[in-house]
């Protein structure tokens, strides 16, 4: 908006021309903005400069005349003179390249990186013509596996320290380090260890040579055959920007795009390698209907006819209220809008719940002033009360880790230690229910938290941001609604973010795919949530549409879910085969990620575009088309059937989306998408190309689409209002009252323990099961208890124990001792094997279990 915000520039002379630079920035950045690209290897704009490869040497003036200095490391200073094009500089750079090639194998034709290799490219551009090196090169044993996902070819490594720095500084997973010395320096894990990090794939992405390669990608494609579509990751609701790369109609790789406001180019391994599942034989590719007891592949027409007749007969026989839609948080906004219209308008049922986790409800989300991620990271204090961020919204952990190094203060509220605990100035080891109760009725816990917040933020919470989410998956969502409501009441000036982590759950809320809401954040009569729908389905005849979810794997009280599915007519609309599909009467295959276009909404409310890279597999169709075809089958007007047109209808019909245009979303003006509702005020606008070092992400075909936003140069554009400037404000939602029952914090006197369920990143979902390499990473379910509790049970660390739920369910599971846990609780970590969800009692304030040694 205004240049007044940028601090006074520093003036340097670059190759004889005076340019303006930002105070504190390295020469390499200032030069690049002025159009002079200085070659480099070790420098990465999102990591600390180390200045070790020496490729970026330039001549810099100093007290003793000009000397060669690393431009990636040295910061600009007023009056500094820099020469990048002298003979001396050229010779130094040639020399470094020649040295780099001394021990680098020339196996480019068989190297995964060949064709997109900065070493190869810069050798062509800057290097000496011919190698003068005739000696024997250093040898290492060929590629070694440093984790299930990443392989290391040490002969190709140029010791740039990008991977080690990433592991250590960005991910805080220092499980790789340099070993050895001199030209025998190698990147290494502990001999018997591995690079077990949720973020390991980023090292592959930033390695400037072919030393680190990803097992799922190896030999899949040659870079020059690749095409790419810009997109957004939907593994969680953070919505990392990324490029889907494909070759000959097959998705071959995901590469992180450096979005200043979201992911800084990083991806987690679950998101990055989820494409593995796209090609698997667990994909649903044909419509199927049940004939007698067998599922048979049929045409879409026949499948639609069956769906239509089910809808008509249920409506006629039991009323529209016997039809329910579960799931959809993995769908596009356009698909959700179409399905909600189908359900709530065409069919006339209120029963739609996309949030199977029962996280913070839409009523609270809509009523709370939402922060953007940028605001949260710049907050005076950030209070985190949610499940472990690294397990739920992995890249958010990276952003928090970075922000804390830059001064962000975090206060954590969590009963268990999480990845955030070491980052926090303090962890309050309290349950969400306890804090909610304390905030409602006062007391020392509330005072303590109040003092902590007040130490950095205003009395009313000005400058504070709360990141709230479900931390115990055995709790009812009311606990979290109460906590959020109590927080908002105590700190009316604070802002919020919510950690519901399903991909497009916030889009689903905005579009009315949750109970009590219509599209556009319009309230309607309250109705049943997923748990209640399942309970009803166990008793009465119902028609259940499962939209990309498997309630058997995701909902508590498995026995109840099983009888509900048994009892109901089930239509599965999914991309992957799941346990629930065995109960289906109709299966409709949905186009998977990368196979259809559309938009998605992240946890800030940021709407971004999904890229279509390849055609839908087999007979599968995009979600919005399936909804349209069901509507047509019911004799309703199907409405628009292209994502652009559906979004246009949304922005016409719903004030929430007013001003949003599909074409804007991937444009130079809004490369990071737009947060809805659009703000009325004029804001600074960014534009492409947003020059970011192309070597930061070597595989990216369009590297200029990333990086920090560059203010618009043109006067005409500056100060122009956002597109939503004259749109009416979307309706303001009042925060409902929630009262928490003291039962939520009561301690069982009879030796039962309160169950605290947490999830890990790799949890057994249908899509993960379809990814051959990723699925190996799913951990086994286990429980953790305080050492004294373990002793009281009479079990030893690592032995199997028996958990008995209140409704008699018994589960055998391995128990571990954990010093950080209090007595009286048992932390169940969901995973493969034992199904801990079945222990959960729905409809109560807390779940208790008995633990016995086996």
């Amino acid at each position: 908006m205004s240049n007044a915000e940028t601090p006074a520039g520093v003036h340097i002379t670059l190759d004889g021309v005076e340019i303006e630079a930002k105070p504190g920035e390295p020469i390499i950045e200032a030069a690049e903005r002025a159009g002079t690209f200085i070659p480099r290897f070790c420098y990465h704009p999102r990591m600390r400069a180390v200045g070790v490869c020496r490729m970026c040497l330039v001549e810099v003036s100093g007290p003793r005349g000009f000397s060669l200095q690393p431009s990636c490391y040295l910061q600009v200073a007023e009056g500094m003179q820099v020469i990048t094009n002298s003979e001396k500089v050229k010779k130094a750079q040639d020399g470094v390249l020649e040295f780099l090639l001394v021990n680098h194998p020339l196996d480019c034709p068989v190297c995964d990186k060949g064709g997109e290799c900065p070493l190869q490219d810069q050798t062509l551009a800057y290097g000496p013509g011919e190698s003068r090196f005739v000696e024997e090169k250093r040898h290492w044993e060929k590629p070694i596996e440093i984790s299930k996902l990443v392989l290391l070819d040490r002969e190709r490594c140029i010791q740039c320290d990008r991977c080690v720095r990433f592991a250590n500084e960005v991910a805080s997973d220092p499980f790789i380090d340099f070993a050895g010395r001199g030209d025998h320096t190698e990147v290494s894990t502990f001999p018997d260890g591995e690079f077990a990090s949720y973020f390991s794939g980023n090292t592959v992405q930033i390695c400037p040579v072919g030393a680190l390669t990803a097992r799922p990608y190896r030999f899949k494609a040659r870079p020059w055959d690749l095409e790419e579509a810009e997109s957004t990751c939907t593994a969680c609701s953070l919505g990392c920007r990324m490029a889907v790369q494909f070759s000959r109609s097959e998705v071959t790789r995901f590469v992180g795009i450096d979005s200043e406001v979201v992911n800084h180019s990083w991806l987690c391994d679950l998101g990055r390698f989820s494409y593995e599942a796209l090609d698997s034989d667990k994909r649903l590719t044909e419509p199927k209907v049940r004939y007698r007891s067998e599922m048979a592949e049929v045409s879409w027409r026949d499948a639609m006819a069956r769906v239509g007749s089910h809808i008509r007969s249920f409506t006629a026989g039991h009323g529209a209220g016997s039809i329910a839609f579960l799931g959809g948080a993995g769908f596009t906004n356009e698909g959700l809008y179409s399905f909600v219209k189908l359900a709530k308008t065409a069919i006339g049922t209120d029963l739609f719940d996309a949030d199977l986790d029962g996280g913070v409800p839409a009523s609270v989300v809509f009523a709370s002033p939402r922060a953007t991620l940028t605001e949260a990271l710049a907050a005076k204090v950030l209070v985190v009360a949610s499940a472990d961020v690294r397990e739920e919204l992995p890249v958010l952990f990276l952003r928090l880790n970075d922000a804390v190094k830059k001064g962000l203060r975090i206060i954590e509220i969590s009963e268990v230690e999480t990845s955030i605990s070491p980052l926090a100035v303090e962890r309050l080891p309290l349950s969400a229910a306890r804090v909610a109760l304390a905030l409602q009725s006062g007391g020392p816990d509330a005072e303590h938290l109040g003092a902590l917040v007040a130490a950095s933020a205003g009395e009313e919470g000005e400058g504070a941001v709360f990141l709230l989410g479900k931390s115990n998956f055995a709790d009812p969502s009311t606990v979290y609604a109460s906590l959020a409501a109590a927080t908002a009441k105590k700190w009316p000036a604070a802002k919020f973010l919510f950690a519901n982590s399903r991909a497009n759950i916030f889009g689903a809320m905005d579009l009315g795919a949750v109970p009590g809401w219509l599209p556009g954040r319009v309230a309607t009569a309250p109705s049943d949530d997923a748990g209640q729908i399942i309970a009803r389905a166990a008793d009465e005849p119902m028609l259940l549409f499962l939209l990309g979810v498997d309630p058997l794997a995701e909902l508590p009280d498995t026995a109840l879910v099983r009888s509900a599915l048994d009892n109901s007519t089930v239509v599965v609309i999914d991309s992957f085969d799941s346990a629930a599909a065995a109960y289906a009467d109709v299966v409709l295959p949905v186009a998977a990620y990368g196979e259809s276009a559309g938009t998605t909404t992240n946890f800030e409310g940021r709407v971004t575009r999904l890229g279509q890279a390849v055609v839908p597999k087999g007979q599968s169709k995009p979600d919005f088309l399936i909804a349209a075809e069901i509507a047509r089958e019911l004799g309703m007007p199907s409405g628009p059937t292209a994502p652009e047109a559906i979004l246009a209808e949304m922005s016409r019909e719903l004030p929430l989306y007013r001003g949003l245009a599909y074409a804007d979303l991937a444009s130079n003006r809004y490369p990071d998408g737009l947060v809805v509702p659009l703000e009325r005020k004029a804001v600074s606008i960014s534009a492409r190309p947003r020059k970011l070092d192309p070597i930061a992400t070597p595989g990216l075909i369009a590297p200029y689409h990333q990086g920090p936003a560059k203010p618009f140069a043109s006067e005409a554009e500056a100060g122009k209002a956002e597109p939503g400037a004259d749109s009416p404000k979307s309706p303001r939602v009042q925060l409902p009252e929630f009262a928490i029952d003291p039962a939520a914090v009561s301690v069982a006197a009879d030796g039962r323990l309160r169950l605290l369920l947490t999830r890990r990143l790799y949890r057994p979902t249908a899509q993960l099961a379809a990814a051959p390499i990723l699925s190996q990473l799913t951990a086994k379910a286990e429980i953790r208890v305080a050492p004294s509790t373990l002793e009281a049970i009479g079990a030893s660390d690592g032995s199997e124990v028996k958990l008995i739920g209140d409704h008699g369910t018994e589960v055998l599971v391995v128990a571990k001792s954990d010093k950080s846990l209090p007595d009286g609780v048992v932390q169940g970590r969901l995973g493969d094997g034992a199904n801990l969800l079945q222990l959960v009692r729905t409809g109560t304030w807390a779940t208790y279990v008995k633990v016995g040694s086996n």
Partner: protein
Amino acid sequence: MGAFSPEMRERAESLVALYPERRSALIPLCHLAQEEAGYLTQPFMEEIAELTGTTPAEVYGTASFYDMLHTEPVGKYLVGVCTNIACLLQGGGELLEHAEQALGVAAGGTTDDEMFTLEEVECVAHCDKAPAVQVNYRFFGPLTGESFDNLIAKLRAGEYDGVVPPHGTLVRVRRENGIEVPLEEVFAERREMDRAKAERKAAAEAAKAKEGN
């Protein structure tokens, strides 16, 4: 758990306590582990990681930077023949060749009986006695082929047992306990020193200004 014996663990913990930051004890702890096991085994590296608040990968990466830390077994005696410039000029290269023949292993190798590991080493700062040899970091020189053979024979016969401990034991003199100065108190004292210094400076300047008048 527990690669260190209880007694060594105690010593390990007192080493950690010597430094303002735990990680500083990493190398002394590696020496301690070598003292106990002859070389750095994986369980030791894991325990050192725990003691220093690092990961085993970092302990391994750090240890492997240093020539004296061995992550593979070595002989009871690590025999290093210096061939750097001062020794080279006095026949260090020839002495190394002789040592290879005499021990029957190339530099870097360990004899079959695991008594000797031979190394070609860089200058050991014993240049006035060139060509010099170090055995478990105890120095000998100047050596001829013959006196080298003699040395090996005596080591084999145990005649140097008091002088040359088995590989791993570096320093046999312990720091005596209970004499550390708590840093906090020292900091307080330093602040006091700084304050007094500032006062003296101010007084001196005042005096100077007065003189000037």
